[in-house]
């Protein structure tokens, strides 16, 4: 994988970053969580189904421009993660077209590429490489990552000895260092304790810039209201509405028959 910075050309605000046209995603997946040859042989001649077809996205049209921070909301199973994965090129679309103008980095899950047997220091390198950074970029940003994660000397201990909060903190610190043109973040904001949550929230805010497009998937409505300048609401694989964050989030909350309360605002 070549360096992300190699793609960094100056993008102007308002330039198209991602264009999703008539996107449809249908896939076949195994019903069993762990499909086996034994189960398949046993079911021979019985006519039991081994796979099911999932219609994850249907006719989705969405344009994201540089300078835009798009929040994506919806209930569980609405197709938010599927949409993010198709934009990132992880799952190919069944129908439609996706055009991406710039380098994309995904923050869909924390700690991808980490090896728990290795030290935090080694994992910063591993995770950085997995996120598309070069060895030099990682080396240059290492101190910054270590400082942001607030791990101190523990960074040289094997990651299996870390608490889940420490693990997530280091993972977020690595992921937030990547400077792509288009950043896709899926539920990665809720990391660690309140203090670190605040820090990571501010980091995401810092990542907003004129020449970058951000797509955030979250259930934390208050966060989305504060960060985003555009929100899209997905329901059962279809785009319901898109526009002003307050307006769309209010509609969504009305749809869920929920009143406004700080608890609901934080996590839906």
């Amino acid at each position, binding site marked *: 994988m070549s360096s992300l910075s190699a793609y960094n050309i100056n993008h102007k605000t308002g330039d198209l970053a991602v264009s999703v046209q008539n996107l449809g995603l249908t896939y076949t997946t195994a019903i069993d969580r762990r*499909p*086996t040859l*034994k189960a398949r042989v046993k079911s021979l001649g019985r006519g039991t189904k081994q796979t099911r077809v999932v219609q994850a996205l249907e006719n989705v049209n969405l344009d994201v421009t540089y300078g835009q921070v798009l929040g994506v909301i919806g209930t569980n199973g609405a197709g938010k993660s599927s949409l993010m994965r198709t934009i990132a090129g*992880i799952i190919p679309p069944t129908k439609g077209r996706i055009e991406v103008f710039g380098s994309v980095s*995904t923050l869909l*899950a924390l700690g*991808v*590429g980490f090896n728990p047997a290795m030290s935090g220091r080694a994992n910063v390198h591993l995770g950085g490489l997995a996120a598309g950074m070069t060895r030099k970029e990682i080396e240059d940003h290492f101190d910054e990552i270590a400082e942001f994660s607030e791990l101190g000397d523990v960074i040289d201990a094997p990651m299996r000895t870390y608490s889940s909060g420490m693990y997530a903190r280091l993972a977020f610190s690595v992921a937030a260092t990547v400077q792509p043109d288009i950043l896709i973040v899926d539920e990665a904001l809720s990391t660690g304790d309140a203090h670190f949550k605040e820090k990571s929230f501010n980091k995401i805010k810092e990542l907003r810039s004129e020449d970058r497009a951000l797509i955030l998937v979250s259930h934390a409505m208050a966060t989305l209201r504060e960060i985003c300048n555009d929100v899209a609401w997905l329901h059962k694989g279809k785009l319901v509405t898109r526009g002003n964050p307050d307006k769309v989030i209010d509609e969504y909350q009305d749809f869920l028959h929920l009143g406004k309360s700080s608890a609901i605002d934080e996590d839906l």
Partner: protein
Amino acid sequence: MLSAVYFLLIVIIGGSGGATRYGHLTASLFLFYLVSNSLSGGVKSVTAGQRLILNTAFPRMMLPISATVIAFFKFIPTLFVFMIMRTALGLPFGWQMLWSIPIILITLIFSLGVAILISTINVYFRDIASFLPYLIRTLLYLSPILYEASALKPKLRVLEHFNPLFSILESWSLSIVHAQTPHLSSMLAATGWALGVLIIGTYFFLSREREFAVRL
């Protein structure tokens, strides 16, 4: 160590020993382990890389390739061990031993092919990984490792046509243990098997690769 145990078994059961026999056993086991390590490392490479596959866009083929590369790095030191051993055993040296280089290359192609193939199959049938040790052991006994290919009765030589490792290991033993030129037919068969398995494996992998993210 393992080759010494097998050698002891052969001597007890078959009653025959000798330096050449021991050299053959060791060299063949080392090459066999290149294939078997590639298989056992490759089988879960895709399913174990689930988090990477689900969250990052990268060439998925890298996963089984890395399993074969690891197996190859484990194989390299054994070559040096064998060279020291064959000198100590007093086995003949000759330029024919250079045939071992293309044979290693053929084995690598074959190992890569099987690693790619089995990693794809394991996505659809996760119990293949548990079945693999039996498959590897069967291959071990059906290949000319505990015995020499030339010692087989003509009737049993039929194995040669069904076991892809047969011609590879026969050529390997002839070149690196006996310092003789391998049979052209064996070399051709070995190349055919290796390329065939790699092409089928790669085609199967590439045709299914797009599905991995939703199957894992």
